Every structure is written in C-alpha cells, then in structure tokens.
C-alpha cells in the first residue's frame, strides 16, 4: 500500500471514530430542531418529520405565553466569567508552573503535592462554607465571586500542566536568551512561553471548558441574571414537574457553539515540534 493510500485510510478510520464519538452529542444537536413529541417517543421517529426553530424561538421569548429566558445576559455572564477566570488561571498557573519547572527550592515537591491536594476537596465540602464566606464579603451573586472560585479550581491543574510543558523546553534556550541580554522575564516571555504554547493552549482550553460548563458551584453562587451562567440557565428548562428536553437541547446548542468556536481558535496553538531544531544532542 502506498503511503498516500495509507494516510487516507487512517484519515477515514479516524473520521469514523470521531463520528461515532460525536453521535450522542449530535443527537442532542438534532433534538434542538425537533419537537419533544418527536424525540422522546415510542416507536421512535428515526427520520425527523419536521425540523423546527420553535425551540429557539421559545428561548428568546418569541413563542406565545412564554417568558423569554434571558439568554443574552446568561451568555454574557458565562463569557465574562469563563474568559476572565481562564486568563487568570492560566497566568497564575503559568507563573507557578514555571517556578516549579525552572527553579530549585527546598520544599518544592511538598508544595507541588500540596497544590494538588487542594483539588481533592469535593465541591460539597466547599460550597456551603464558600457561600457563607462569599456572602460575608458580598461576593454572592456577582461575577467576580464566580471568577475567583473558578480561578482557584483551575489553578492547580494549570500549574501542573504548564509545569510539564516548561520542562520540555530545553533550558539552554532560556539561557541563550539571557546571554542575549534578556531579563528572566523577557526570556520567559519571548522564548519559553512561545515554545510551551501547546501546553498553555491545552491548559487554557481545559480551564475554559471547565468554567464554561461548570454547574454545581455556579448554581449556588449565582442567583440572578447578574451572574447566572448558561449551564445554570439550562436548569430553567426543568420545572417542578416537567423537563423541556427539546428546549434544553436548543439551549445546549447555544452553549456549545461559542465554546466550539473559541476552542477551535485557541487550539491552533497546539503545534507539533515547536522545539525542533533548537538544540543538538
């Protein structure tokens, strides 16, 4: 088999696998354009009979007798919270990760472990004390409050992840930069940061998606349209006795699309062989 053929075959197989993985998700997306009666029924309706935008209309309050879900402000809240906390987590994480990767100091592995352990606390043990603490300092139902919390839950792993990637950047490169007159900060920013950017991008993606999709804590710390995020808004579709699954799916699509776009943009920084050709040996 020629190499080109083999490449194509691998491509096709991968594509197939991806498709299978995506199926459950695609079902959700498709459901957004169908009616509840058609999705959840027996016998199943395999071929959608009538695709409709009603679910979306309802979300925006265009249907009859339904109050619009304030998607606009949820969206904005989600965006502000996720982006800010991601940036913060990545910056703080990078700074910590760099310290671990490049500096020697006594108690280093202890600190590293400690940082990890901070993640072991289940949300439940945190959420109520956090709530009380936050209400004392007036952070309840504010975007800032959520941002701080998300930053904290994302920091440990942005630290570890970026640490791993900074280790992969040959030390000689930052040395060369320092010889070239860089301050350690310049050496970091101009040489090590660009070379570790695969890792930083993946940490960023991970942090962003965690914040974007987080529900448990947000559902407690947010109260109103001032701070409620999209996943919390998703629960607007579950009333006491009913769940509007099709509506939820429509909302899901609204949640997924921006995340998809943002991830697509960020992941262009996942690049192979960034350090190739830099050092010999």
């Amino acid at each position, binding site marked *: 088999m020629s190499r080109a053929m083999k490449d194509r075959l691998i491509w096709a197989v*991968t594509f197939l696998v991806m498709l299978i993985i995506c199926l459950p998700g695609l079902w959700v997306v498709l459901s957004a354009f169908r009616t509840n009666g058609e999705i959840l029924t027996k016998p199943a309706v395999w071929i959608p009979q009538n695709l409709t935008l009603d679910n979306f209309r309802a979300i925006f309050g265009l249907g009859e007798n339904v109050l619009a879900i304030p998607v606009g402000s949820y969206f904005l809240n989600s965006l502000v919270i996720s982006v800010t906390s991601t940036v913060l987590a990545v910056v703080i994480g990078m700074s*910590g990760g760099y310290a671990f990767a490049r*500096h020697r100091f006594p108690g280093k592995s202890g600190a590293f472990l400690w940082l990890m352990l901070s993640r072991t*606390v289940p*949300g439940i043990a945190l959420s109520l004390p956090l709530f009380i603490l936050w209400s004392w300092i007036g952070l309840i139902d504010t975007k800032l409050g959520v941002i701080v919390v998300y930053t904290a839950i994302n*920091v*440990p792993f942005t630290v570890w992840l970026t640490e791993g990637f900074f280790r992969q950047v040959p030390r000689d490169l930052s040395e060369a930069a320092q010889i070239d007159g860089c301050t350690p900060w310049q050496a970091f920013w101009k040489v090590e940061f660009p070379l570790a950017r695969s890792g930083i991008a993946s940490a960023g993606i991970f942090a962003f998606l965690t914040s974007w999709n987080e529900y448990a804590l947000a559902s407690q710390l947010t109260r109103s349209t001032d701070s409620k995020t999209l996943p919390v808004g998703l*629960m607007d579709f579950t009333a006491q006795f009913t769940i509007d699954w099709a509506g939820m799916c429509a909302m899901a699509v609204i949640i997924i699309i921006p995340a*998809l776009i943002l991830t697509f943009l960020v992941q262009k920084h*996942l690049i192979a062989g960034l350090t190739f050709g830099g050092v010999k040996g």
Partner: protein
Amino acid sequence: MTRFRRYARDHAVPLALLSPAVLVILLVVLLPLLFSFYTSFSNYRLIRPDSLWDWVGFRNYARVLGDGDFWSAFGRTVLFLTVALNLEMLLGLGLALMVNRITWGQRTMRTIMMFPMMFSPILVGFQFKYLFNDTIGLVNNALQSLGLASEPIPFLVDRWLAFAAISFAEIWMSTSIFAILILAGLFAMPKDPIEAARVDGCSNWQVFRHITLPFLMPFIYIAMTIRSLDVARAYDIVDVMTGGGPAGRTELLWTLIARTAYDDARMGRANAMAYFSILLSIFFTWFFFRKLMAARRHLGAF
C-alpha cells in the same frame, strides 16, 4: 523566624511566582475547608443556624463509619474512579495517537474530537438519561428496531448496567480531555529519538512502547491526577441520570454527600463524609504523584 526569612530571601523568585496560586487557593479552598472541618464535629443543620454551636464531637464520624450505605458508596466510588480513569486514559491515548497521525485537516479533526468536552456535565446527565431510558430511550429503540433486543433493557436499573451506564456517560464526556492533554504532550515531544529508534530497528509499536510512552508518561500522570480529582464533576451526571439510585446501586460518595448536605440539610454529617472522601482523593493523588515523580526521574534532566 530568621531561618524563614533567609529562606524567603534565597528563593524570592519562585516564591513570588507561586504566591498568586497559593493565595487564591488559600482563599477559596483552605478557609472554607477550615469551616467545614469545624462543622463536621457539630450537629449543624442548614435550616437551624444556631445548631452550628451544637458540638457533637465525633458522633458524625462514628455514624459515618458505621453506615453500610456510606461504605458501599465508598467502594463503588473507588471502582468508578478506577474503571473510568483507566478507560478514559486508554481511549484518550488511542484517540490522541490517531489524531496525531493525521496530517490533513488535523485542526478540524481535533475540534471534532473535543466535541464532547463542550457538553456541560448536567447536560450530559440528561442526554444519557434519555438515551438510556428503558422505554422511550434512543438506545433501546435502536436495539429493538434492529431486532437486537425484544425486551427493553433497563440500563439505568440493573445493578451492573446502571454502573456501566454512568461510567459510559462519564467516559464519553471526559475521554477527549485525556486525548487533548496527551495530544499536547505528543506535540511537545522531540522527534529525534523517534527517528533514532526507527533506525535502531523498532517497529511502530516498539517506538511507541520504548520512546513515545516514556515521554508521555508524565503527561499521562498529570492528566490522571487532574482527572482523579475532577471526576467529582461526575456528580452532576450521576445526580441527573440516577440520583444514586435505584436502591443506591449507583450511589457515589458525591451524590450521597450532596443529598445529606442539602436535601437533608445535615451539613455536619455531610462534612464528615466529605473528609473521608478527601482521604480517598488524597490517596489517589499521592499515588499518581509518586508515579509522576518516578516518571520524571526516569526522564532525567529532561
């Protein structure tokens, strides 16, 4: 004190670099933790604020220790963690390797790969709750339409099927996280040693086994550690899909704790449980941390 001051002076740079991380964690994790630690010794009930001062000593712990439901949830959680983490790791590794091989349209493929990551855990919960529903669920419908099953399969009821179903949902949601982290690790890999290994007579598998994998191990362990802590997010999924039921068949520590804390409003007892679950997480973390350090040492100066 002077020793501390000297330490601070000698290592000012790393300490300064680390301090934001430490601060934010102190604020968001440690302070609340102290509070909840205190409450685990009280009969604190949310709806009776004054019960915060109702000190009960080790009663909560004693009760939790003697609670069969708690221990079966504990065991199930360990099993769930083990199964989900390992499968996610293996599948994620496979996906990452596959995507890494692709040259044409890789960025699009990567985005497709991350598709499940876009789903909020509660959404995933609902999604699989409906997919696995025994009467109107898509899976049952499909199996019956294809003639593979005549009776509806109670995915969310049968002891093992239900466990499999929640594991499946969790794995579906999180495999791509592994994949993307491992993929990034693959991208950071030097390619020289791979070429050398191929010349040294390695088959593709041997290259993977002897070169790629040792390089990836630190990344895999980091991902494992992150995830071992993060599967607590599975709470949302399980809560929506089965709520830990039926009859506690899918009860995990988190669902049990959450119900005790909020539905029962018995915060003190919930926090006692939480500290047991912290112990569990500490064990997992420490385990992976040791592995990580060993893998690092193995990679030497790299």
